């Protein structure tokens, strides 16, 4: 249902098979400056050679720990940060040459984690929602705002003239969602959009997001650290570690069997929800390493219990490893020709 809606979107050009977003070899490094002359002393490898696609009508979940580059990826896709290298192709148009950033921004909107910081405290709710359409010269911005408020569950008569500080966190996040929808986007990036909400409110917003996806024919990128939420809402999941993709695939395949040892550790770290069967051993020791000067080879080899020499020497490529061409992992264990002693063998990752 949602798929057909997204594919029959009026702005659709390339047809159902063409990805909505094709990200190729995205790279973003930040210089670290220090000392008397403010010289560059180190580099944060926030995103390194990141390639993936977002298909029309799907929800792509992105998971990973802090500092792995999830939010940088989102900001690169929406043009809030400039790419150091790589290209973004939006429905067949290369960003920067075939399609301008301004034109793409109509089609790609974002909802941030901090519902309060992302609203202008001096604009009323209806002005906030109408602001984007007004700037882009769309018709009847005020009517559009009132309609969207009603759609996200905020009575326009009660809320239109209120200010952000008069709203609860859940209500503010509904305003942010309405504001994102005001531009009739095709892709909405939700960057930890429900993480700051209380659990009971989070469930309400998730139901709303599910309904809106069908109704407006949307495609979502859903960034979160909560694996339960990602499983509930996503079709495919992308797992990041220190600026790289370590695994990507259909949500059921990844949740049933993780191919990369890092993904497996992330899942093992989830609370068990079973008082008779609590976790006995932490899956990983220590904290995620700093993205300043990440380890060579496979970036996970410093914490991986299967690491061998090859893992330190050679960076594993992201490749399909089994019957499912959609399920990819970047691990020498999954590549029989890698030279890893356990390569290709069944291991409990």
């Amino acid at each position, binding site marked *: 249902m949602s798929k057909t809606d997204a594919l029959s979107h009026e702005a659709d050009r390339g047809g159902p098979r063409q990805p909505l977003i094709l990200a190729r070899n995205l790279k973003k490094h930040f210089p670290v400056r220090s000392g008397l002359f403010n010289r560059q002393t180190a580099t944060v490898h926030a995103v390194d050679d990141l390639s993936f696609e977002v298909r029309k009508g799907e929800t792509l979940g992105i998971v990973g*720990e*802090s500092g792995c580059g999830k939010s940088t990826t989102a900001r690169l896709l929406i043009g809030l940060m400039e790419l150091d290298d790589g290209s973004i192709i939006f429905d067949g148009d290369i960003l920067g040459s075939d399609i301008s950033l301004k034109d793409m921004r109509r089609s790609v909107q974002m909802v941030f984690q901090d519902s309060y910081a992302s609203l202008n405290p001096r604009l009323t709710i209806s002005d906030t929602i109408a602001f984007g359409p007004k700037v882009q010269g769309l018709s009847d911005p005020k009517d559009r705002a009132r309609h969207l408020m009603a759609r996200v569950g905020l009575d326009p008569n009660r809320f239109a003239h209120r200010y952000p500080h008069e709203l*609860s966190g*859940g209500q503010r996040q509904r305003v942010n969602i309405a504001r994102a929808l005001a531009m009739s986007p095709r892709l909405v990036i939700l960057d930890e959009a429900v993480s700051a909400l*209380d*659990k*009971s*409110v*989070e*469930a*309400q917003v*998730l*139901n709303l997001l*599910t309904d809106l996806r069908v109704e407006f024919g949307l495609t979502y990128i859903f960034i979160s*650290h*909560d*694996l*339960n*939420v990602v*499983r*509930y*809402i996503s079709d495919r999941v992308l797992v990041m570690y220190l600026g790289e993709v370590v695994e990507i695939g259909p*949500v*059921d395949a990844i949740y049933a069997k993780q191919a990369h040892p890092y993904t497996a*550790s*992330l899942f*093992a*770290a*989830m*609370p*068990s*929800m*079973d*008082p*008779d069967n*609590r*976790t*006995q*051993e*932490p*899956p*990983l*020791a*220590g*904290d*995620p390493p700093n993205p300043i000067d990440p380890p060579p080879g496979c970036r996970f080899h410093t914490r991986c219990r299967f690491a061998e020499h090859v893992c330190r020497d050679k960076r594993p490529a992201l490749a399909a490893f089994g019957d499912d061409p959609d399920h990819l992992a970047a691990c020498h264990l999954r590549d029989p020709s890698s030279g890893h002693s356990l390569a290709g063998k069944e291991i409990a990752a």
Partner: protein
Amino acid sequence: MSKAPLLQIENLHVRFKSDRTVHAINGLNLHLQEGEMLALLGESGSGKSVTLKTLLRLLPPKRTEIDGTVQVNGTDIMTLSGTRLSAYRGGDVSMVFQEPALALDPVYTIGDQIAETVMRHKSVGRAEARQVALDMLTRVRIPSPERRLKNYPHEMSGGMRQRAMIALALASRPKLLLADEPTTALDATVQIQILLLLRELQREFGMSIIFVTHDIGVAVEISDRVAVMYAGNIVESGSTRDIIKDARHPYTRGLLAANLHGVDRGRRLDTIAGSPPSLETKPDACSFAPRCTEARPQCLRALPPFFAPSPGRQVACNLEEGYSPASHGLTAAPAIAC
């Protein structure tokens, strides 16, 4: 009841006064035995953190009105002041905060901070206190503890800082450790390390822990017993197993459903409609009734009494009225199954 409980809170009320009044805690009763791990579970504004701060007397006295009694190890802590209060804070009871980067002093090394606490509470010399600090860092499994003693907080990672914070809190061997969402700011793989560490340390030191969290999964991982808070009071308490497998209060059931554990993809989520009350007036009926799909007329008329559907369970909900009232009626403390 074999022994007097370590902690006894009876009919606690906390009100904050400023431009408007907030009734943060409304008639809370809580008992805790020695060596017990209790999780206080609730959403923001339910009064979890206020309860912990009351226990350490950290609330601003001028703007706070506190009624009720709080006894720790037989002492009424509301009567403490001056040196006795200082000895109590960090001595008998100490606290681990959510944000170790803010709770630790940035201008002193970890070793200095732990040693200072030890010298304060145990009246020992500097050399001996340093030795205790080193021992504590080893116990919280910080690698190369000798070197870490000389580190400043900013030189450590988030997980390491939280370990140091725990070492600091346990340095004077408190009987009760209060943990205010100590893992919320941490990554998942680090969170599970800290939870397992607290479980081990609890066994080692035999202290009691009150662990405040909004995450039901974390509560299951750490606690023996769970008390669910809503609008400034406990609405349900019982063993962790009972709460997870047989939640009685509609709010607890809603919270469990909202955790999304094992929910089918694409299925509509059962949600709790609305949002928690503002607590500007003192609740005189069930605070959850306006959001409850099973509310009855009597829920809106008076505060629901505590019922005891099984030993060690307490549920403040009229739906349970077939069961016997909990031992002390309305003001009952959650019974304890030791």
